[in-house]
C-alpha cells in the first residue's frame, strides 16, 4: 500500500562500496595503494554483511534499508540523532580540553560551529515544512 517509502535495498550497500572506492583513490593519490585496497576491502565487507544478514537481523535490515517503512525510518532517525549527539558532545569536550591545555581548539571549534549552524538550519526548514 501507500506506506512503503521507495528506496532501493541496494542504495546503502552501493554507497558503502562507492565510499570504499573513494578511500582507494584518495590513498592511491597519496602513494598508499595498499592502504587504499585495505579500506576498499573493509567497505566491501561491510556492504556484503549488510546484504547477507539483513534477512536475519532486524538491525542489519534497518541499516541496509533505513526507509523501508515508517518504523525503520523512525529507528534510523533516532539512531542518527543519537550518533550526532554523541559526536557533538565529544567535539564540545574536545574544545574545552584544548582550551584548558592552552591550545588552539581548532578544528573542534569549527566542527562545533558547523553542528550548531546545521541544527539551526534544520529547525528553520523543519518548522516551515510542518
Amino acid at each position: 500500500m501507500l506506506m512503503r517509502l521507495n528506496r532501493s535495498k541496494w542504495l546503502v550497500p552501493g554507497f558503502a562500496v562507492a565510499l570504499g572506492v573513494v578511500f582507494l583513490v584518495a590513498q592511491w593519490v597519496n602513494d598508499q595503494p595498499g592502504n587504499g585496497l585495505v579500506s576498499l576491502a573493509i567497505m566491501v565487507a561491510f556492504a556484503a554483511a549488510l546484504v547477507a544478514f539483513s534477512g536475519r537481523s532486524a538491525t542489519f535490515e534497518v541499516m541496509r534499508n533505513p526507509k523501508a517503512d515508517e518504523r525503520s525510518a523512525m529507528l534510523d532517525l533516532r539512531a542518527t540523532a543519537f550518533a550526532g549527539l554523541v559526536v557533538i558532545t565529544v567535539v564540545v569536550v574536545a574544545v574545552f580540553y584544548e582550551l584548558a591545555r592552552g591550545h588552539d581548539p581548532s578544528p573542534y571549534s569549527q566542527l562545533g560551529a558547523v553542528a550548531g549552524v546545521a541544527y539551526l538550519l534544520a529547525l528553520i526548514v523543519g518548522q516551515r515544512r510542518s
Partner: protein
Amino acid sequence: MQNLIRELRAHAGLSQGSLAAEMGVSRQTINAIETGRYTPSLPLAIALARFFSRPVEEVFDADAAQ
C-alpha cells in the same frame, strides 16, 4: 498504545507477514504494533482500521495504558 490488531489479524486468518505485505510495512513493524512497542502513524493506523473494516478508535485505544 493498546490495540486489537493481533486479534483482528488472527480472526482474519492472516500471518504477520501477510498483513505486513498488505500494509507495505515490515513484519517486524506489525509485531511491534501488536505488542504495543510502536505506535503507528495516523495514515498507517487508518489503513489498518480500514483493512479490517473497523473504526480507527475501535482498533486503537488511545486512553488505555499498555
